[in-house]
């Protein structure tokens, strides 16, 4: 994105972003990539999700978020639009999460 020259530019960007990002009808996982969750292996989870999505061709969006708060139970992630909250996610669990939550399971 280029440098914004005026307030109208900002408004444009804003409306584009609000239209395109975080659409409510889209499937999405929000994986915590805060310090604690990164340390407990959320990078592996993200990588595994990316691989699985590429392999199965799913329409699933991955959002790497900041700290979600419950660091003790990390890595944590949210599955939208269902509102499920997963804790202590390991990269072995990813396949299971996708099959039970997103691919008709």
């Amino acid at each position, binding site marked *: *994105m280029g*440098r*914004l*020259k*005026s*307030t109208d*530019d*900002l408004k444009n960007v804003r409306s584009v972003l609000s239209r395109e990002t975080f659409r409510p009808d889209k499937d999405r996982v929000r994986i915590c990539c*805060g*310090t604690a969750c990164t340390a407990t292996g959320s990078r592996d989870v993200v990588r595994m999700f990316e691989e699985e999505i590429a392999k199965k061709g799913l329409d699933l969006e991955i959002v790497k*978020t*900041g*700290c979600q*708060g*419950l*660091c*003790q*139970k990390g890595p944590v992630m949210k599955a939208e639009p269902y509102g499920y909250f997963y804790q202590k996610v390991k990269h072995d669990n990813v396949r299971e999460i996708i099959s039970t939550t997103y691919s008709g399971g």
Partner: protein
Amino acid sequence: MSPEEVLEEVKKANLRGRGGAGFPAGIKWAHTKKAPGAIRMVIANGDEGDPGAFIDRSIMEGDPHSLLEGMLICAYAIDANYGFIYVRREYPLAVKNLSIAIRQAEKMGLLGKNILGTGFDFTLHIREGAGAFVCGEATALVASIEGNRGFPHARPPRVSEPGGGPWGYPANLNNVETYACVPQIIEKGADWFLSIGTEGSPGTKVFALTGKVKNTGLVEVPMGITLREIIFDIGGGIINNKRFKAVQTGGPSGGCIPARYLNLPVDFDSLWKVGSMMGSGGMVVMDEDNCMVDVAKFFLSFTQAESCGKCPPCRIGTYQMLQILEKITSGNGEEGDIEKLERLGELVKEGSLCGLGQSAPNPVLTTIRYFRDEYEEHVRDKYCRAKACNSLAIYVISQVECIRCGLCKQACAYDAVIEARDRYFIARDYCTKCKACYYVCPVDAVKLLSKRHLRLEEEFRIPLERIDTIERRCKMILKDIIESKPPVIVTVRKDRRLAEAVKIMAENNVSGVFVVDENNKLESIFTERDIVRCVVNNISFENEIIENMMRRDITIFDPSMEISSAITIASRKKIRHLPVLEGDKIVGMITFRDLVSYLLPEICYMAKEIY
């Protein structure tokens, strides 16, 4: 929105500084705006020094743009062109993410010269601190930004006044969390913000919940939520279902809040009232295994080590307080130490230059205020009920519970556990009280006892579980006896004949009555012994009135008197009837028989054990 409108909106939202003291941000902004001079600064305080708190860190690492946006809005409102984010170097990821965020914003044209073509300039720099706790204090932080040693200076001038900020320019300093609240207020309006939380403290607050709770981590809650909800609903209760004892809010500058304030709404003012403070939002939950003296010592040793050393009350005062605490926890406490701690604490609070010293005694003072009995136990009995202060107990192996596995003998590095033919015992001369045997015992047969309990057990053979009951009885007061009896108060007017008094005594089946005047005020008591005296002196019961025969020198007892002292007084003065009065109100009469019936079970019990 014009800068004035932004300022009004923040003022209206009553956003209070999330750094701890809760000073309204709007008023601070307006104060900085009024300062003369063309150059103003905006500073974000990200020096989060409290052990266990990482609220600002999560914002700076996870959502740095919200901080940048808040600072931009503030700069716009007060017409400032330069900004600093003060981060401690121990947060390398925060520094990294913030620099990325600043670079992104500059590339987009949201920071720098002529932002969005409006002609407004704002440049932002990161300043890394060396991780000193005192640099969270405003004036010390300014000194640190300038590149000097983190020393606070006397106020005024405040940071928001000329001469107070970095290089003498006025600056607005707020906590990272405060700035992160601002974009939401501007976007959704002050009324939306006021609808959350309490009247005096609107909005939400993030707490770092740690300690002995099941779920630890960051929790964002509306202000005014009770401690119980945070600890038991969100935190899931205490680990291993132990008993909750206290919660330390505000880190080393805050205080311990005991269980009786669990329903306290958490906001700036109510925490202040119970002697604690919000602080940056740390919350350490403690259960019955935490010794409050030890906790106070831990927090004080932190502030003592972090004291910058500029002013003597803080430098010397906290050191002396720590020495006294050290003395108490190592078993050398003396009578008067607690009072000395209290006096020193007040002096340090009054005399210190900056917020660090002014709040450093808080953990000690609040634990003394709410857990004084625990301090007294450490000093007098040399005993720590939480069994946290190692050297304050005598280590004994309970022969009843011991399964003779021998693990304690292996664990002991000093050969203090001695194996006899059929049992293990601890030789007290060799025992260094390292607690190794206590931790290793699979059936908890190693007991930590106080000297007094041990004597009671060894000399009188009173089992430990009975000692509690006996001690409770020792602490009983006259009020307990009166409450255990049917509430009968028999009175007689002093202008009546003696015969009437005798009749009343017979009717009510009592051995003594209260003699009162016409206003029902106690004059004296009239007892069986007075009757005997009248008979011997040949006084007519039909003709003489009570006033002439009643005694003038009666001893009056207060309901709060301990039973043991009442017994001593009664036997010394040779009296059998103890009138108990609360002020002018007659509460009841205790006879010697009541005292005996209180003592009897104990005597029987002890006699049975001894003989």
